[in-house]
């Protein structure tokens, strides 16, 4: 164990999935031609007035409630002044001392709560492309609504940081206010990191690593920065408060600028926008529309549906999977069968994380429900269902397209006996092995039965009968 402890807090920017920008009616759609989603308001022309998008407030409150935040009865917008070409007004409209949401937390699997200082709303900046020695500016992203979720310095390891970001991503996606796609920039993290001797309770000088767009990079940057700060202190130096950039190609951090403090931004009240007041009734109304959150769902799957913890974690990772699972489980005795099919056959067709997240499969929940009903009513066996499901997933057709009447009802006892006898007579070597104590030898006899019954035979019954007949 290191002599030093890592202390980190995260600032997470998330683009809200509204139709329009925060202060004007321009679309927030991603990927349009440069400067085609712009108007005088979002390119900061003089004389224009911002008008707050109602849904931005609603979405931020949803995010706040889902992360156990209090909602401010009155909040306001402020100007954060800084001069950079991505910001045409030379200030960003943000919130300073009266954020919309405050004092929340996200709970990690080790039971620790990462406290959230605040969640505020603000506008995104434009995009700069540096090429040919010039800077090309595209303001399509300028004015897209963001929430910034600020955590307390409660994170104590790279693993906790990783889980915190994943949890946040999962919760925000569940409540439907953002797709949180880090690779597309709709979720970005700044990490404030410092080190201190184990057991100390004062905070060391922190550095801030800006704008990371993948969980892997966050982890690598934190590991690098932790080592760098420890080495500095061990060699008698001290950490300088500064803003760093992480370079994933070299896996190092480098200085961008000395870190600003709040007073460098000359924050003041945005005079063009009125206060936002949120009544308890409004908060209650929004709370009622929140879906069951990931943690609660996980507990319910484990405790009420009897799904193993690990499986339940995989199922609840993405909301679309839970919706499919719950819909496919309606009216079934044992939802675990559905869970197993999703985690087995369905997941096999979804190779990447983003494919699992999108969960675009040809089979409908109703079709899987029908298939499992055939098992539960004893009409088909599990292995036949599994074979049928693979074909269903590949074609989008229903169970009955692959299972005909003759497959249903399994085998009657006479037919099973007949098949067992055939298996024994055509595999004398395996029978001999079994008689000599090799229990496993029965598997090849069972394989013969399954093949020749087209999967209809009940494996347990067949094994029992084989044992009777073989000796």
């Amino acid at each position: 164990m290191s002599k030093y402890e890592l202390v980190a807090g995260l600032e997470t920017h998330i683009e809200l999935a509204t139709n329009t920008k925060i202060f004007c009616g321009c679309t927030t759609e991603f990927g349009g031609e440069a400067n085609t989603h712009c108007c005088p308001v979002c390119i900061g022309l003089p004389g224009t007035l911002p008008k707050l998008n109602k849904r931005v407030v609603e979405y931020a409150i949803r995010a706040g409630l889902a992360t156990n935040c209090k909602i401010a009865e009155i909040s306001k917008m402020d100007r954060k002044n800084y001069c950079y070409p991505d910001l045409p007004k030379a200030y960003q409209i943000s919130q300073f001392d009266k954020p919309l949401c405050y004092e929340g937390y996200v709970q990690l699997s080790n039971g620790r709560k990462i406290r959230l200082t605040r969640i505020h709303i603000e506008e995104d900046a434009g995009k700069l492309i540096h090429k040919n020695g010039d800077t090309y500016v595209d303001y399509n992203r300028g004015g897209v609504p963001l929430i910034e979720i600020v955590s307390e310095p409660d994170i104590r390891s790279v693993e906790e940081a990783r889980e915190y970001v994943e949890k946040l991503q999962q919760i925000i996606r569940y409540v439907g206010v953002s797709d949180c796609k880090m690779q597309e920039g709709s979720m970005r993290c700044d990490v404030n990191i410092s080190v201190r001797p184990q057991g100390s309770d004062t905070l060391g000088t922190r550095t801030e690593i800006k704008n990371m767009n993948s969980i892997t990079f966050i982890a690598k940057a934190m590991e690098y920065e932790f080592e760098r700060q420890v080495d500095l202190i061990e060699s008698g130096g001290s950490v300088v408060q500064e803003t760093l950039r992480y370079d994933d190609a070299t896996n190092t951090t480098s200085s961008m600028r000395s870190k600003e403090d709040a007073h460098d931004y000359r924050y003041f009240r945005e005079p063009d926008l009125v206060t936002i007041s949120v009544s308890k009734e409004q908060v209650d109304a929004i709370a009622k529309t929140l879906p069951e959150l990931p943690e609660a769902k996980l507990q319910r799957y484990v405790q009420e549906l009897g799904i193993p913890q690990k499986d339940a974690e995989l199922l609840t990772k993405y909301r679309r999977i839970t919706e499919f699972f719950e819909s496919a489980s309606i009216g079934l005795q044992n939802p675990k069968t559905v869970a197993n099919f999703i985690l087995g056959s369905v997941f096999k067709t979804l190779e990447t994380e983003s494919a699992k997240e999108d969960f675009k499969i040809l089979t409908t929940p109703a079709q899987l429900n029908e298939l499992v009903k055939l098992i539960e009513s004893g009409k088909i066996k599990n292995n036949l269902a599994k074979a049928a499901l693979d074909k269903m997933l590949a074609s989008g057709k229903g169970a009955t397209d692959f299972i005909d009447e003759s497959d249903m009802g399994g085998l009657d006892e006479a037919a099973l006996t007949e098949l067992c006898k055939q298996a024994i007579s055509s595999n004398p070597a395996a029978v001999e092995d079994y008689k000599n104590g090799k229990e496993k030898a029965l598997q090849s006899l069972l394989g013969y039965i399954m093949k020749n019954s087209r999967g209809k035979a009940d494996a347990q019954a067949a094994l029992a009968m084989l044992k009777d007949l073989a000796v």
Partner: protein
Amino acid sequence: MINKEDVLNIALLSKLYVADDKLDELTAGMQEIISFADTINSAEVENTEFDNINNLSDVFREDVVVESYPREEILKNAIEQDEGHFLVKKRV
């Protein structure tokens, strides 16, 4: 007191064009605005936390897309442009 040079200077900083025949009017207007600050300074602000501008709060827009401007219009005031982008000097 605000004079014509002040107005021209502010116009330059704001990248605004001021026609000669508007200068007197704008100088007087600017002086009026500055004087208004004295009125603001005399306002009673003890015991008020932060208030609503003109007693207004919750002025919202519905989240409905309005057509954006044509790109030529957006780029019209750009000093330099290339490939549909504003072009500026590189800054770190």
